[in-house]
């Protein structure tokens, strides 16, 4: 299990940010290589992420679901469950957002298995950290 904490800043009111992070059609493409395949309900989407490693790439396909939401505290948890397309691995994560005015905090707890995990937990943690940092810069413009 890899756990990481990040903050993000949008400069926008909490209500605006709250709507944005709960809108899966808007938030999933903020992950580099991520896209919605099918929106199944307001809180559930089939999605995939293609992670490019130079010439190589890995595609994870699965679901993103809002599994917890507290409208008063502006706290929500998005659960990612995905499998490595063409491989045996998987990448699952619980991503908890806690919003404050102008931005918020993100706590990510990820479990990654298979080929990607063969790089070692330290490498996975570094890549995930860089991915989420990139995500937060895109969130700032959401």
């Amino acid at each position, binding site marked *: 299990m890899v756990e990481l904490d990040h903050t993000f800043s949008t400069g926008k009111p909490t209500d605006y940010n709250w709507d944005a992070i709960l809108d899966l059609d808007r938030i999933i493409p903020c992950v*580099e290589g991520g896209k919605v395949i099918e929106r199944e309900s307001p809180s559930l989407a089939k999605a995939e992420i293609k*992670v*490019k*490693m*130079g*010439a*190589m790439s890995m595609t994870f396909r699965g679901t993103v679901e809002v599994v917890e939401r507290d409208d008063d505290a502006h706290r929500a948890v998005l659960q990612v469950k995905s499998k490595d397309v063409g491989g045996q691995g998987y990448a699952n994560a619980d991503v908890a957002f806690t919003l404050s005015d102008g931005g918020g905090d993100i706590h990510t707890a990820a479990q990654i298995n298979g*080929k*990607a995990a*063969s*790089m*070692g937990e*330290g*490498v996975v943690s*570094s*890549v995930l950290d*860089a*991915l989420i*940092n*990139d995500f937060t810069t895109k969130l700032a413009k959401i």
Partner: protein
Amino acid sequence: MGLDSGTHTLGPGDGTLTVLTGKGGAAAKAGHNLVIEVTRWSAKVEVEEGISMALMADPRSLRVVDGSGGISPLGDEEKQGIKQTIDEEVLKGLPIRFRSSSVHAAGSRLDVQGELELMKVRHPIEFALNVGDDGRLTGSAMVKQTDWKMKPFSALFGTLKVADVVEVTIDALIPAVAPVGERHG
């Protein structure tokens, strides 16, 4: 040293010009060390009172022949993908030229100084070559990409990078200078 007076012209038919790349960054394990062959190039070695050298390489002629490391082997599709990345994002088809400013011969060793043009930037470079009695030319030059204002290629949000210094090696048999009668057919 097996170098006759005159002008020797070399190309891919006489040997290989190869680029060796390494990798760095937190996710270096995910990347490959690459062996890349330059498939179209020409060099000229002029031996008169002194020696001078020049080389031109076609930036669109690089071909990945091998890759080691990484979390899975490089297949033909990936090799082709790297070639495309080199063409479109790294060398962008811009001329690659080298011309010597001085060549010092000591036994079979040649100490070469000159200027290499890469990505429209000219920068000094020096390296050593060896010429065997049989005319076999071998040696390598270390090219630090940032000296030519190049940004080494990176992926995975910057956690996987091509090492700044790449090694360029040559292994070729210098053709004999054609006798005057043959030069004109």
